[in-house]
């Protein structure tokens, strides 16, 4: 089954035996749970679009290992064109879903590991790359969704893993066996975890020799014994339980989710281990993954498209679309959004080939792009709220709207431009609320800030990547300073 349909994807999730908790209870039917379901719908769209002729050029690729047509989310980038298509795919699906569609993290983990396993082998004569390619074939042949699990709980941020008062604050090996290893720890903020078939674990920071037990990378089926999922809460999440198509939900079709994932003494067979105590390669894997994932925030451009569209619509419903300041603010929203797009296209176009043959994005430009992502969506959201007006946070519920005694008052007094029905105005306001402070704000705002690394992580990378000496030389030459610095 080289490319699953969305229905086959849904059916495949039903076969998993995941241990998922939410609101203090074990969730037996994960797929149909109303809070989780919209996030499953978003991942399912990544399968559906791959079968649609008008999207297949972006959504599919040819596997470099099997030569078969595969979903791009399982592809290893073979040239800069592939990297550009990845950025375009992010915008496309972000725009179709208006939220996080969760499948990029696993794609980024696969690509980073394709480079890292090759490099470890070159130094230590290990066989990780061969193992990885076998694993990749399995993922491609079965068109799997993978959770890319990097972030550990980290405990006291000022201490390295081996100095934490509780060693489980970073994932580590607790026992070595003939057929594999036993690991313990947790991964937090895991995007799309319970919609995934596989979980790919990577270290979260650079490490030194004393941290070698923490320098591990591996992949496991998501329902492996000992793995437990605890769903993250999102602001306004229980609105999803108020019935399908509910106005108050804002986005009636799609959503995202994060979960914390506990590894309670879990067995990993050797054939699924891709790094084992090669601590000097932990930092490289983190950087490769982070650069790819910073590029992946092309998704925010697509989500921005939806928010801009919603803002234009509410301006019409409110009767202010011709006001010059409103038009100017919408232009500013577009300017910021397209500036983001420039960054994710640029880092892809300026990509390069690594020793393994995988194409990697330009690190400096990917970090600049992500740094912009930590800022611009907040400004776009501010402008959307400015134009929407206060009703987006004071609007009574759909139940009130449906109530025969009072609904008529809402319908009368919440009408804006008389050309449009009140319900349309309410729906758009709820969508803006959803994206700027409801469930989708998790992906559009806080994830823009911290996902793929907090802002300072990009500034460190920018500082490392720019050639300040060369810039200084250029300036000195132009103003006639001849003396070379010692």
């Amino acid at each position, binding site marked *: 089954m080289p490319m699953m349909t969305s229905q086959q994807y849904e059916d495949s999730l039903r076969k998993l035996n995941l241990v998922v908790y939410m609101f203090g209870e074990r969730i037996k039917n994960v797929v149909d749970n109303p809070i989780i379901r919209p996030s499953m719908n978003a991942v399912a769209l990544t399968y559906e679009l791959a079968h649609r*002729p*008008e*999207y*297949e*050029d*972006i*959504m599919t690729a040819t596997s470099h290992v099997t030569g078969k047509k595969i979903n791009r989310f399982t592809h290893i980038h073979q040239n800069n064109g592939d990297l*550009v*298509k990845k950025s*375009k*795919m992010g*915008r*496309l699906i972000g*725009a179709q879903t208006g939220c996080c569609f969760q499948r990029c993290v696993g794609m980024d983990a696969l690509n980073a590991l394709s480079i890292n396993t090759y490099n470890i082998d070159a130094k230590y004569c290990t066989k990780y790359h061969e193992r990885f390619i076998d694993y990749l074939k399995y993922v491609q042949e079965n068109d799997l969704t993978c959770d890319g699990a990097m972030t550990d709980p980290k405990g006291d941020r000022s201490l390295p893993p081996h100095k934490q008062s509780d060693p489980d604050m970073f994932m580590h090996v607790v026992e070595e066996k003939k057929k594999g290893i036993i690991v313990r720890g947790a991964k937090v903020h895991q995007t799309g975890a319970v919609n995934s078939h596989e979980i790919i674990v990577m270290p979260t920071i650079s490490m030194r020799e004393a941290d070698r037990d923490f320098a591990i990378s591996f992949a496991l089926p998501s329902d492996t014994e000992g793995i437990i999922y605890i769903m993250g809460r999102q602001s306004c999440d229980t609105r999803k339980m108020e019935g399908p198509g509910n106005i108050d939900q804002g986005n009636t079709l799609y959503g995202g989710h994060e979960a914390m994932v506990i590894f309670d003494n879990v067995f990993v067979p050797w054939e699924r281990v891709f790094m084992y105590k090669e601590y000097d390669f932990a930092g490289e894997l983190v950087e490769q993954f982070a650069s790819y994932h910073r590029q992946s925030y092309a998704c925010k451009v697509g989500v921005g*498209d939806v928010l801009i569209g919603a803002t234009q619509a509410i301006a019409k419903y409110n009767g202010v679309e011709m006001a010059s300041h409103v038009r100017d603010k919408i232009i500013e929203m577009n300017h910021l959004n397209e500036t983001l*797009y420039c960054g994710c296209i640029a880092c892809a176009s300026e990509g390069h080939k690594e020793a393994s043959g995988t194409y990697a994005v330009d690190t400096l430009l990917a970090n600049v792009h992500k740094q912009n992502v930590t800022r611009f969506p907040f400004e776009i959201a501010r402008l959307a709220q400015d134009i929407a007006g206060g009703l987006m946070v004071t609007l009574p519920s759909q139940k009130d709207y449906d109530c025969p005694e009072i609904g008529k008052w809402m319908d009368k007094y919440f009408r804006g431009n008389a050309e449009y029905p009140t319900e349309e105005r309410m729906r758009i306001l709820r969508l803006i609320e959803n994206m700027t402070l409801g469930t989708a704000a998790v992906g559009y705002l806080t994830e823009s800030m911290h996902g793929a690394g907090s802002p300072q992580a990009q500034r460190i990378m920018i500082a490392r990547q720019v050639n300040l000496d060369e810039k200084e030389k250029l300036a000195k030459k132009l103003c006639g300073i001849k003396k070379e610095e010692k």
Partner: protein
Amino acid sequence: MRHKKGRKIKPGIKYCGGCNPKYDRADVVKKMQHVLKDKVDFGSLEDEEISGILVVVGCETACVDASRFKKIPIWVITQPGDAEKFICDMK
């Protein structure tokens, strides 16, 4: 490029990926199919007997690699106006 009298021309449709299209590509194709139903037999690239390629792209970037189809005619639709021209040419 005009079709020979009496024979329906059969182009295979190749879309770009549609990352940020400036118009509804599928809608434009639907309209072309409707207007030209007696003149043009639209197919897919997989069809063996296609006599040309209709490349439908969402913007001027036109990021579709059609270089492998050197031997047959290629029509590129970049905007709804191109579709209207194609319709006129085929009529």
